[in-house]
């Protein structure tokens, strides 16, 4: 079995029981941050796989919101509280929207892709903000999730949702890791470098971008459903540009070198934000901006590059000692 898993996947599988265990060990507020980070981390993963093909989505909040609202509307208007059904609602809504929008977005690159994705997300923001049936700018609440007829309450409900979130996030991360190593994932990297050559090698760059866009949307929607159920609330802020900007922030902060990077990056961002607000309640954004600036200057490939450069230097040392030993 281990042969079919790479190191990242093994790491993610090992992380799963550890993630679940911390719910029983760490203070509740930290566990809550981890849970919220996992939801938004999935959206950051969506941004990250698009960044691999050189595309920056400034509107990924769109699918975060679509997932959350699809689940919320299923609960509000149909009385459904089953997590798996609500997840299915979120995924289907994201699929329908992303497949349709993908035909438009796949034709654009660079700033045009970024701005177009942002524009679409802001259209949804405007729509939701002015729809009274959906609570306008206040949004609306979601019920506690049930699981195939089982309706846990209190601490059990919280732990169950947390555990399922852990499973979902690790499963999504492994799936996306496989995607990045698949032929399409490889083509994405090539698109970032030279799209003309990709077409001349015999494949459609548009199709690859479209598939990536849809996959990113689905993962973001799953994040949206899990996040909404964890907080028990959805509002249009989920698709506001500031929220989408955070996902881009996370991807830059963490780097796109590994699928685990955005998940870790999201948690780090949450922690930075908590302390920034505590240190400087009125100007905490300045601290976030400074962190962003320093990351871009000193770690242009993100925090993950610290790990890869450390690995490289260790390998170089080993090579050097091997050559000294005459091997």
């Amino acid at each position, binding site marked *: 079995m281990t042969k079919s898993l790479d190191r990242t996947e093994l790491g993610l599988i090992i992380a799963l029981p550890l993630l679940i265990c911390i719910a029983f060990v760490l203070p509740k507020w930290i566990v809550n941050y981890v849970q919220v980070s996992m939801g938004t981390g999935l959206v950051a993963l969506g941004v990250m796989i698009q960044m691999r093909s050189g595309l920056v989505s400034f509107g990924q909040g769109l699918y975060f919101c679509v997932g959350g609202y699809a689940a919320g509307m299923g609960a509000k208007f149909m009385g459904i509280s089953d997590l798996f059904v609500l997840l299915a609602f979120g995924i289907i809504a994201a699929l329908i929207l992303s497949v349709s929008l993908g035909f438009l977005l796949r034709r654009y690159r660079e700033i045009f892709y970024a701005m177009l994705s942002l524009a679409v997300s802001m259209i949804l923001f405007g729509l939701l903000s002015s729809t009274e049936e959906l609570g306008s700018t206040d949004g609306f609440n979601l019920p506690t999730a049930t699981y195939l007829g089982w309706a846990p309450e209190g601490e059990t409900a919280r732990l169950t949702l947390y555990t399922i979130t852990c499973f979902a996030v690790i499963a999504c991360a492994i799936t996306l890791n496989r995607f990045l190593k698949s032929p399409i994932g490889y083509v994405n990297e090539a698109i970032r*470098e030279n799209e003309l050559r990709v077409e001349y090698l*015999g494949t*459609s760059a548009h199709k690859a971008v479209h598939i990536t866009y849809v996959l990113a949307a689905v993962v973001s929607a799953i994040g949206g459903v899990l996040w909404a159920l964890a907080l028990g609330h959805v509002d249009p802020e989920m698709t506001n540009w500031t929220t989408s900007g955070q996902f881009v922030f996370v991807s830059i902060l963490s780097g796109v070198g590994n699928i685990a990077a955005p998940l870790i990056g999201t948690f780090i961002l949450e922690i930075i934000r908590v302390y920034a607000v505590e240190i400087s309640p009125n100007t905490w954004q300045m601290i976030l901006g400074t962190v962003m600036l320093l990351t871009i200057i000193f770690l242009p490939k993100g925090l993950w590059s610290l790990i890869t450069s450390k690995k490289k230097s260790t390998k170089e040392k080993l090579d050097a000692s091997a050559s000294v030993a005459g091997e």
Partner: protein
Amino acid sequence: MTTILETRNLERTFGAVYAAKDVNISIDAGEVLGVIGSNGAGKTTFVNMVTGYLTPSAGEILYRGKNITGLPTRDITKLGICRSFQIPQLFPELPVIENMLIALTIANQDRPILFRPAINPSLEEEALSLLSRFRIDQYADQEITTLPQGVRKLVDIAMATVAEPDLLFLDEPTSGVSGDEKMDFMRVLIDALKSTETAVLFIEHDMEIVEAFSPRCVAFYEGTTLADGPTAEVLEDQKVREFVIGSEFHRSTANDPKSKPASKAQRSNKGTQ
């Protein structure tokens, strides 16, 4: 010989300007064809049209009897027509081996496969063997940006061959390669391609190269073909000498070891005037 490509009255205009007009060229299987002409004569436009980058304004392109006019680039590649570029079109921030692996991955991909690993040891072996055929396997781990122009050209051409094309267009393969190395460069190239029985059309400004490596030659001038035939005859053609290569060029300087080598200035002028 079987004709694999035939163009009929091919035409391409940009506004009022004719970039190509009445271009009728046929290429046989396994043939090596040289294309000469001054800058702006329509050589690259011809390649761009056949490979689907430009849609002809008029005329037809037949490949193995099938009309491929206006097909997208990727579909034409899948049919077996590939090309290299005057300015190598590579993935510059990746190592040579990764460039080859991407090309192989795409060539082996019949339909989008989402979750199967693209790379496996046999693919890596195949990539290395292709690089060694072009004698550039020693550069496998180097990033493209660190390579000299000649090696980049070879990587570009090696990538174009991964799909095992029946017809390969090489757009000025020796441009950017130093004058002294051009002959050796072309020898490596033609040797590597010989084993594949691929028909090759190469655009070239150096007449010595054309004379040495292509039995047949087509001369372009102002979007039309001025002459098409055995290279020796085309290079002696009065119009070709007047409009394409200039009267200073003397044949057989490349093949005849007794003849005086062409001066550097003469070499660079040949065919570009």
